C-alpha cells in the first residue's frame, strides 16, 4: 500500500486534490432538494451515489443489447457477454491485476462471504479447529462464522479492540495459532473507520497455515488495494459502495483455492456436462455463477471502475484524509459530541461515528434530515461492536469523492441547531 506523507495531509484545509466541483456535476442526485435544503449526502459507507455514466449504462444495456449471456450465438448475446466479461477484466485489474478466473460475481459482499463459508468453510472446518475474526466485524463477516462454528463444533475466537478503536494485537500469538484454519477480518471498519494492519495479520496467519478472508467493502472504494501484495486468500467487496449499481458483489480468491471449492448453487451456466444422473462443473469462475446473472448491473459496474480509475485511488484516499481531518477538527470543537475511532486520521477511512451526549442518534439523524443532511444512525450492522463502545447506537457521517468541507460545515451547523431544538429549546 502507498505510504502517505504525514506532513502533507495536515497543511490543507480546503479540498484541493480533486476538482470536486466538476465531479459533483457528474452526479445528478446531488442537485436534489431535501426538505427545502440542498442534499448533503454523508451516508457513503452505506452506499454511494452514482455518476451519470453508470446510470446511462443501465439504460444503454436494456435499450441497446439486452440478451442473456454465455449461451446465445446471436449479436446481442455476444455484445452482452462481452460487456459483462469486460467488467470482470476491469475488476481483476482494479484490485491489483489478478486473473479474471479469480473474480466471482455475487450479489454483494455478504453473499461473497456466505459463499466462502458454505463452500470452503463446510469442507475444511472441523471440530476443534479455530476460526478467528475480530470484535469490529460487520454482521456480514460475523454471523456466517458464528453459524459455521455452531455447525462444525469449531472454536470462534475474537481479536479484541482497544479503547482507541484499534485491534489489540498484544495477544495475537495466542489467538492465531496452528489450530487456526481461517482468519476473517475487515480491512476498514464501517463504524470506527479503523484501517487494520491486514498485511501483518495475513502474514502471521499464513505462518500458521491459516487462510485469510478480508472484508474490503469499506476499503476498495476508498484507497488503493492490491490483493496480491497483501497476499489475501479471499477478498470481498460490493459495487454499490464504489459508484456502481446495487446487486453486484465480488469474491476474489486465489485460483487454486477456487478450484478446490465446490459450488453451492447449482443449475444453468455453471455446468460443463450434464447427464440424467451426473453433472460436472464449468471452468472458473462460472462454476460459482449459476443462473442468469445480474447482467445490467454488471455491465454498469464498468463505468464506475472507469470513473474511479480516471481520478486515481491515491487521490481519492488523499481527498478523504483531508475531509476527514477537517471533519474531526470541526466535530471536536463541539463539546457535546463524542467521536469514536482512531485519533490519527492516517489510520482511518472517511468514516466518523459519533454520539451527542443528550440526543439519541435517531432523533439526531431525523433532525439532520430536516436540514437536508443525510447520515446513518443505529448500530450499523455491528451490534456487538457498538455495545462494546458503551452505546446502543451512533450517528455516522461518511465521505466520498463529491463531499466538500462546506458540507462538513453544514453538518456541524445542523448539529448545533439540533442541540437548540432538543436540549436548550
Amino acid at each position, binding site marked *: 500500500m502507498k505510504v502517505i506523507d504525514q506532513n502533507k495531509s495536515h497543511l490543507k484545509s480546503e479540498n484541493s486534490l480533486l476538482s470536486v466541483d466538476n465531479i459533483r456535476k457528474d452526479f445528478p442526485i446531488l442537485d436534489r432538494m431535501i426538505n427545502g435544503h440542498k442534499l448533503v449526502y454523508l451516508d457513503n459507507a452505506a452506499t454511494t451515489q452514482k455518476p451519470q455514466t453508470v446510470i446511462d449504462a443501465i439504460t444503454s444495456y436494456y435499450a441497446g443489447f439486452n440478451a442473456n449471456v454465455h449461451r446465445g450465438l446471436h449479436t446481442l448475446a455476444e455484445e452482452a457477454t462481452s460487456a459483462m466479461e469486460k467488467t470482470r477484466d476491469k475488476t481483476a485489474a482494479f484490485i491489483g491485476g489478478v486473473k479474471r478466473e479469480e473474480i466471482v460475481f455475487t450479489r454483494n459482499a455478504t453473499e461473497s462471504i456466505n459463499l466462502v463459508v458454505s463452500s470452503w468453510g463446510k469442507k475444511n472446518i472441523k471440530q476443534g479447529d479455530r476460526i478467528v475474526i475480530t470484535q469490529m466485524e460487520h454482521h456480514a463477516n460475523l454471523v456466517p462464522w458464528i453459524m459455521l462454528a455452531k455447525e462444525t463444533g469449531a472454536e470462534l475466537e475474537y481479536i479484541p479492540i482497544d479503547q482507541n478503536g484499534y485491534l489489540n494485537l498484544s495477544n495475537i500469538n495466542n489467538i492465531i495459532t496452528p489450530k487456526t484454519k481461517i482468519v476473517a477480518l475487515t480491512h476498514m471498519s464501517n463504524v470506527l473507520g479503523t484501517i487494520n494492519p491486514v498485511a501483518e495479520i495475513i502474514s502471521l496467519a499464513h505462518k500458521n497455515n491459516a487462510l485469510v478472508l478480508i472484508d474490503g467493502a469499506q476499503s476498495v472504494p476508498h484507497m488503493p488495494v492490491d490483493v496480491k501484495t497483501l497476499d489475501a486468500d479471499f477478498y470481498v467487496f460490493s459495487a454499490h459502495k464504489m459508484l456502481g449499481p446495487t446487486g453486484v458483489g465480488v469474491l476474489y480468491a486465489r485460483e487454486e483455492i477456487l478450484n478446490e471449492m465446490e459450488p453451492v448453487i447449482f443449475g444453468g451456466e455453471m455446468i460443463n456436462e450434464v447427464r440424467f444422473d451426473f453433472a460436472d462443473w464449468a471452468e472458473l469462475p462460472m462454476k460459482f455463477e449459476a443462473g442468469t446473472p445480474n447482467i445490467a448491473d454488471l455491465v454498469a459496474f464498468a463505468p464506475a471502475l472507469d470513473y474511479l480509475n480516471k481520478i486515481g485511488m491515491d487521490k481519492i484516499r488523499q481527498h478523504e484524509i483531508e475531509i476527514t481531518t477537517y471533519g474531526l477538527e470541526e466535530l471536536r470543537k463541539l463539546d457535546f459530541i463524542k467521536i469514536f475511532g482512531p485519533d490519527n486520521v492516517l489510520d482511518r477511512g472517511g468514516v466518523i461515528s459519533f454520539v451527542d451526549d443528550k440526543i*439519541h442518534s*435517531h*432523533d439526531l439523524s*431525523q433532525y439532520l434530515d*430536516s436540514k437536508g443532511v443525510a447520515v446513518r444512525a443505529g448500530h450499523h450492522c455491528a451490534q456487538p461492536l457498538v455495545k462494546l463502545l458503551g452505546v*446502543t*447506537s451512533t450517528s455516522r457521517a461518511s465521505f466520498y469523492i463529491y463531499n466538500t468541507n462546506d458540507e462538513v460545515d453544514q453538518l456541524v451547523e445542523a448539529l448545533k441547531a439540533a442541540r437548540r431544538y432538543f436540549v436548550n*429549546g
Partner: protein
Amino acid sequence: MAEQLDEMYRDIIMEHYRFPRGHDKILNPDITKEGRNPACGDEIEIRVKMDKDKIETVSVDCAGCAISTASGSMLAEICEGKTIAEVKKIAGIVKALLKGEKFDKSYDIGDIEALQGVNKFPVRVKCALLSWTTLVDAIDAKQTGRQLTASTTEG
C-alpha cells in the same frame, strides 16, 4: 418539513422525553420483561406491579430516542390503576393511531394523542410501539404462563 418535524416532536412529547414518568425501576415487580428494537438496537425493560387484576404501577427503563422514551412515559402514566383489559384496549388504540388506522375516539387517551404526528415517519413508528408491544407481551405471557423471551418490534 420543519413543520412535520415539529408535529412529531410536539411539546407534550418533548416534555415526557425530558421528564419521563415511570423511570424509577420497581423493586419488587410481578412481571419483568425486556423488549428490543432490532432496527436500531434500542433495549427497554418493563416492570409491572399488579394489584389483583389491576396494574398498580409500571416502570419503563430505556435509553431510547425521544419518541420511544416519551411513549414509554405515557404508558407508565396512563396504565396506572387500569385493568388488563383497559390496558390492552389502549395499546390497540396506540397501534392504530401510529399506523394511521381508525380507532375509538370516544376513549380518553390523554397525552397519547400527541403521538399521532409520528405516523408521518414510518421508521419511527417502531420506536413509539416498543414499550406497548413489550407490555402486552408481558401481560399475555403472565396470563398464559408462557416463558418470557424478549419482545421485538419485528414481525
